[in-house]
């Protein structure tokens, strides 16, 4: 008896991701928040596949007054909110003031911004410090409808605005996105239905004859992959966008004709080497680690799923420069030479290297164990420990407390992506904390180029700067990159998409880019 199909004929997509932390655009910060934002709201500017941004809610924008502290945005006309009212500059200005006033989520990188309405469809943003790449940062700023928010304000500590409608927005939405929220139980489930009057429309250009827009979305938040495999096989799950499958499960999905994969953006497995704590304070010692690690050994069985070589940027990103070691293979001979040059060459035996990974994450532990075994061949002992996340992330708050090596998975979640992987991770005024656990800011040339990237409005020239800075950073061996971990979206065969591959978390999960083949679903019928 086949497993009875769950809702065989319903036009619905059940999507699994990390638990949604919050559905309020002003406080959304994590991956799944961003992914839901792109469904319920629309940003002013949309990330472009070739990097940089393109028109979306704003049709055009330019700096005013020549010193990049004032930017003018012209809005698209006739854009409807879910309530049916039209989007105006008034809403956008209110949203920016709210975004900055609440001061959480993704407002950090913007600094202090004040908004001024010029006319019904034009708004100015005044920055507290000049920034040439300000428009690129707005891919995570989502306008809300002022009237609806103010109508649902509760007591709060924002003066006359009370709680700025934060409580109401956790279970409702005031956005313009392709889907409208119908219910949200935090940490459990979020329901949404298609917004027919979405301003980009639902044209069938580029889609097959039976591929229709998905009418209903159910975002669920399950972390156990045995359960997810059961759901996937019983048809209870249509699309899984965390990509946490184990190797055998990936094999199983690959063999099953009713299931398929979509590989969209990849995550950069990064192992920082703390340049301020012995023995990794010695550049040659760090280089030795770079060459001692057995890249092929750890990636081997995963190669078929695209876990290839990676660098400071991700290979699928324009402007990617391959960095040492080339070819990406273990080179014990070169590693011994580097070790000999390092100041710890003589007493390798009592040198202690600490490698911390986040407790409970198997793939991070595997990298640690692989390094531990490789370094053991060079006579260096590596201690691998996995403290729980709060302790692990707290350790990286200062150079002294940061272990020699810490491993992280950096998905392209912040905008603009190139800036996130370079300025935010290597500039002194970058994100700090776990994003700069190498604590190396001693090369003035790197800092000069990174500052230049933030002052260069032209995206092509900016790209050239990024290409120039990557080898320079790599020369100091501040990190080694075991492999890139592509996020494989497992899906039912009748779910088709995404239409555009955009290397950034959010747009690729915008269900406006996905379609459902209802005929195929009914045919499968199980």
């Amino acid at each position, binding site marked *: 008896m086949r497993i009875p199909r769950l809702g065989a004929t319903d036009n619905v997509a059940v999507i699994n991701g990390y638990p949604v932390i919050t559905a309020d655009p002003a406080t959304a910060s994590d991956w799944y928040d961003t992914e839901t934002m792109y469904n319920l709201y629309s940003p002013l500017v949309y990330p472009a596949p070739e990097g940089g941004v393109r028109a979306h809610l704003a049709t055009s924008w330019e700096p005013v007054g020549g010193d990049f502290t004032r930017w003018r945005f012209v809005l698209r006309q006739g854009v409807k909110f879910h309530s049916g009212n039209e989007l105006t500059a008034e809403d956008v200005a209110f949203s920016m003031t709210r975004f900055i006033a609440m001061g959480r989520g993704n407002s950090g990188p913007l600094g202090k911004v004040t908004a001024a309405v010029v006319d019904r469809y034009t708004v100015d943003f005044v920055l507290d410090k000049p920034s040439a790449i300000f428009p690129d940062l707005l891919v995570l700023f989502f306008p809300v409808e002022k009237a609806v928010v103010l109508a649902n304000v509760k007591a709060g500590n924002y003066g006359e605005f009370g709680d700025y409608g934060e409580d109401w927005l956790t279970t409702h939405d005031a956005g313009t996105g392709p889907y409208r929220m119908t219910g949200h139980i935090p940490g459990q489930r979020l329901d949404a239905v298609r917004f027919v009057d979405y301003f980009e429309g639902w044209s069938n250009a580029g889609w097959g004859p039976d591929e229709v827009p998905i009418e209903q979305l159910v975002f669920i938040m399950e972390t156990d992959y*045995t359960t997810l495999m059961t759901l996937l096989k019983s048809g209870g799950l249509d699309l899984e966008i965390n990509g946490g499958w*184990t190797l055998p499960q990936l094999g199983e999905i690959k063999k099953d004709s009713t299931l398929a994969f979509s590989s969209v953006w990849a995550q950069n497995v990064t192992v920082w080497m703390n340049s301020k704590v012995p023995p990794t304070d010695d550049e040659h010692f760090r280089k030795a680690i770079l060459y001692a690690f057995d890249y092929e050994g750890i990636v081997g069985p995963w190669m078929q799923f695209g876990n290839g070589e990676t660098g400071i940027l991700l290979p699928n990103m324009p402007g990617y420069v391959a960095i040492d070691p080339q070819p990406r293979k273990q080179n014990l001979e070169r590693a011994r030479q580097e070790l000999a040059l390092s100041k710890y060459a003589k007493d390798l035996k009592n040198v202690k290297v600490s490698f911390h990974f986040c407790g409970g994450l*198997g793939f991070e532990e*595997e990298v*640690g164990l692989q390094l531990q075994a490789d370094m053991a061949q060079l006579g260096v002992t590596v201690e691998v420990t996995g*403290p729980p996340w709060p302790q692990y992330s707290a350790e990286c708050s200062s150079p002294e407390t940061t272990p020699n090596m810490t491993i992280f998975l950096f998905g392209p979640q912040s905008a603009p992506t190139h800036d996130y992987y370079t300025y935010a991770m290597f500039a002194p005024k970058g994100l700090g904390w776990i994003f700069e656990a190498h604590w190396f800011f001693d090369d003035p040339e790197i800092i000069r180029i990174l500052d230049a990237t933030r002052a260069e409005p032209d995206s092509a020239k900016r790209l050239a700067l990024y290409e120039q800075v990557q080898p320079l950073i790599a020369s100091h061996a501040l990190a080694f990159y075991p492999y890139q971990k592509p996020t494989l979206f497992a899906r039912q065969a009748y779910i088709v998409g995404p239409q555009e591959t955009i290397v950034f978390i959010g747009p690729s999960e915008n269900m406006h880019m996905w379609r459902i083949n209802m005929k195929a679903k009914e045919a499968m019928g199980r």
Partner: protein
Amino acid sequence: MRESTKADLLAAWRQRRRNLAHGWYKYSRNPLSVLGLVILVLVLFVAIFAPYIAPYPGHAKAYTNFRDASQAPSAQHFFGTDRIGRDIFSRTLFGYRFSLMIGAVVLGLGVAPGVILGLIAGYRRGTWVEVVIMRVTDVFLAVPPLVLALAITAMLTPNLINQMMAIALVWWPWYSRLVFSLASSLRNEYFVKEAELTGASQFHILFREILPNCFAPIMTKMTLDMGLVILIESTLSFVGLGVQPPKPALGTMVAEGAKRLPAEWWSTIFPALAIVIVILAFNLIGDGLRDVFAVEDV
């Protein structure tokens, strides 16, 4: 004087030998109890001499071999290999070391104080003594072992002994509750009344009169807890507090393996079986000891 003390000693020693023999007779009457003892000795032997018995002693230390990871049980690898390519059979043998240690430390530190406090509280039921002890028990019962372990690893160095102490700290209340309910019933028994009438000391009443009668449930709970304690290590490892890699521990191996069920069933089933064997041994011994101490009227 010296002559008699020597004779007394000899008599006492012979008496103890006879008691021991009598105890062994009662214990060995049930073949299962003997089986339990044999298994335990085997497990101890295996744990101690693991480096010599295990086919791949190196796999318990820093070793990775992703090429032949996750292989099914075969001639080379009796229990197959885990996701990092290490031989599960060898790691299970080494894993016994840690599991037995955590069991001994937690039950050792946890049971005795709990039983004593429970006895006192039960015997003096209705007085402020009961109130104080039992309410403190309620406080410690409520603290989840995980939070305590997290806190202790922050305050003290996160080595294994501290974590085990953390678990022992939340384990004693279980026994004080159990013994409390037993003692409050037993204290109305006639042999206790008679002991009180004949002016027996508190110590005698508690430990010679009441405790032996609570012995059976305590022994049952203690041997059953052995399993729970070994497994609690897997909860700790779940959040990175258990045994630090690459050292193997049965609880962690079961937890890790469970994620790869059902395709790679061997990575969780065999360590789980290893735990079953240890628990089987402890429980059979527990049942046997209960026969020795059980009150038998012939």
